[in-house]
């Protein structure tokens, strides 16, 4: 049977219901009444459009492994050992100043089937009015020795852009700013 064509993506628009950014949806550190294991941290930053204007009510979603590098999904061969206190997914919206915040843990590195290592990272989706197809990016952590060999980070060309995907230590966590277009534009992936 021929494959079906995936439905065309269309912008979230300006009126994503405020109820859909549930209180606590940006805190990944509790699940089923258990606390997540690992290094707890705040992931925060600012999202701007071309020209630097901050984005208000833009939606970010993240997906990441637990502190041992395990995804809570049966497609991860180690998922039976996933941290019961960590769900791995979160949603946050920016405020009028363009700022967002997640409370999460530092994900672990994990080995791919071919033996190469994925460095600790967080998958990020950007959804907003005027973004016709949601943008995909990946956040890495400053100071991780595995960054230089990560197959996704090293796929980014030219190499000078890679530092834009590395979150910097700041305060009680890491800062990751996102520029949708223009100065300091964040690298986005097309899969």
């Amino acid at each position, binding site marked *: 049977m021929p494959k079906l064509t995936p439905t065309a993506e269309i912008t979230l628009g300006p009126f994503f219901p405020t109820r859909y950014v*549930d209180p606590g*949806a940006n805190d990944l550190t509790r699940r089923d009444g258990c606390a997540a294991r690992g290094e707890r941290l705040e992931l925060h930053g600012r999202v701007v459009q*071309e020209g630097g*204007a901050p984005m208000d009510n833009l939606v970010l979603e993240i997906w990441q*492994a637990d502190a041992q590098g395990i995804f809570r999904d049966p497609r991860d061969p180690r998922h039976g050992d996933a941290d019961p206190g960590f769900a791995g997914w979160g949603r946050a919206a920016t405020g009028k100043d363009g700022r967002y915040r997640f409370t999460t843990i530092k994900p672990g590195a994990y080995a791919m089937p071919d033996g190469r290592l994925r460095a600790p990272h967080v*998958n990020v989706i950007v959804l907003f009015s005027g973004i016709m*197809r949601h943008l995909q990016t990946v956040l890495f952590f400053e100071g991780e020795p595995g960054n230089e060999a990560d197959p996704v980070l090293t796929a980014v060309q030219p190499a000078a852009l890679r530092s834009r995907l590395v979150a910097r230590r700041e305060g009680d966590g890491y800062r990751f700013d996102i520029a949708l277009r223009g100065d300091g534009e964040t*690298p986005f992936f097309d*899969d």
Partner: protein
Amino acid sequence: MKTMTTVTLYRVDPIDPATQSPRVVPGYRQTALRNPALPLQRRPLTRSELTAPREQAARLAQLGADIAGHGATQAIGQLMHLRLKVVDEDGAPVGGTMVEMWQSNAAGRYTHPNDDDHAPVDPNFYGAARVLTDESGAIEIRTIKPGAYPVPDSGHWWRPPHIHFSVWGKVWLSRLVTQMFFPGEPLNAHDRILYAIPSAAARESLVCRALPTSEGPSNALVFEFQLVVRGCAATPAA
């Protein structure tokens, strides 16, 4: 304790750009400020992109699928039942995935602090349903038909009646956010968003199908719509 579960490995193929929006859409001002100017990056797909969150129901409040209200608090507008199905590229149903839906009221006004249109708010209509698909990938939503509305500062561009959807699917790359349109609406052909998609077949697949009035309850129209999320079954890698 280790658990061993048989799972289907999943593959996500590149997408045909003719079936998707060009990202920067003529006549939609914000698209030229908010979409990347740099070429998009290519990456190898790993476990990280080919797994997905499955516990939205535990993190997000379910709002139910009946949003039209009843009796004295029924929303104003044409009552309709929307039969929705979520499948992957193999046509396999995606059961147990969360669907978020939102729409304007019958006058074209959203219940949202950022909507300052002159059309009236309907106190009996918030306009958002959030519900899990059943094992066959289906849900049925009871709502009212949304109205058209003008886009501010756009030179008389009106959005045709449409309903927004957000679904997850089986892997991180199968996340889908889109809009559904209605058959026979004269504004469809003038919608800058719908007509930015080059492929006529891809546009057509965003239009729901009206079922014969004999198919539904006596007081509501019935429409059918299918969402196809990215991904298909793959044989295990050697």
